[in-house]
């Protein structure tokens, strides 16, 4: 589907697919994200500890669930924030761990439009993140206010 020049509630159509984003996850990125988020849980930053406790039965660290959620948020901020769009809510389930050297692709689609007073109209977006094997790692939905 063709992307409108400027994102606006009246211009977007149902089933429109947002431009996807892809991120390759490494231990360095995970640790950088730990510093960014201040979440230094050893399950994310300490491969030695993860091996010792045999985390998830594979003995590797995992990426922050909030990092995956941030990537899903970037799907939306990249798409509409410059035009005045704004997140209203996000509801995400993190269903599979993301390991170092995974590549995550985030996709989303408009599934509903909610007309309201000017400046309050919003769309529902269903989105997901999956790894290089097609395994979904996160699913959820967002409400996004569009100008």
């Amino acid at each position, binding site marked *: 589907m063709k992307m409108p020049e400027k994102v606006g509630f009246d211009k977007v159509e149902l089933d429109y697919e947002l431009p996807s984003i892809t991120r390759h996850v490494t231990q360095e990125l995970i640790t950088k994200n730990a510093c960014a988020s201040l979440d230094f849980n*050893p399950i994310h930053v300490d491969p*030695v500890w993860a091996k010792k406790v045999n985390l998830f039965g594979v003995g590797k660290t995992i990426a922050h669930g909030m990092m995956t959620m941030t990537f899903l948020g970037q799907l939306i901020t990249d798409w509409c924030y410059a035009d005045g769009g704004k997140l209203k*809510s996000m509801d*995400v389930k993190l269903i599979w761990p993301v390991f170092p050297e995974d590549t995550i692709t985030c996709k989303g689609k408009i599934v509903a439009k909610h007309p309201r007073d000017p400046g309050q109209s919003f769309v529902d977006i269903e989105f997901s993140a999956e790894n290089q094997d097609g395994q979904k790692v996160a699913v959820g939905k967002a409400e996004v206010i569009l100008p």
Partner: protein
Amino acid sequence: MPTSKEARTLIEKFRKSEKQKSFQYDFFVDESKYEKWEDVKIGQEGMAERNFKVKMEDILTYLDGTFDNHPLFRDEKFAKKTPWGELIAPPFLIVPIAFWCTGTSSGSWIRTPGAINPGQKIEFYEPIRVGDTITIKAKAYDKYIKRGKNTSRTCRNLETRRDSWLQSGGPLLYFQLQRAMRSINLLKAF
């Protein structure tokens, strides 16, 4: 078991901002002080132990750590041309805000080594801006056992006050960050 030397070396490489450098990154250090699942009382609420004063370096280091190059969040000239009219913080700056403010206070189980995040529900109201001082009130609203794992949910309301709003009688801004966190005994689970 304290944070390994390998982990510490990589962490030190990326700590840049004042808050990052002063934050205790070894979550094992205060482990005994964190809220335990058994201690969580539904309905109990409290203010986080400290506030978060938003500086531009907090936003820039967060953007760098999340591969976010959107100019709205870092380029004042670009931001002025958008409907926002000024720089705003990326929505998920609420994550370091939550960890900075919480410490060993209410909701501190999020720092428990081994705690896993199964999901989040977040409502956004107003974007955060440089200069905001964010406070958090946390309230435990659910705890349960499912598939052999203990899970807790905390609702965090993030607020700030802006002088312009106080003068005009405008609203406070706030978010609700409902976080579910699953604590598992790793040595028994695997």
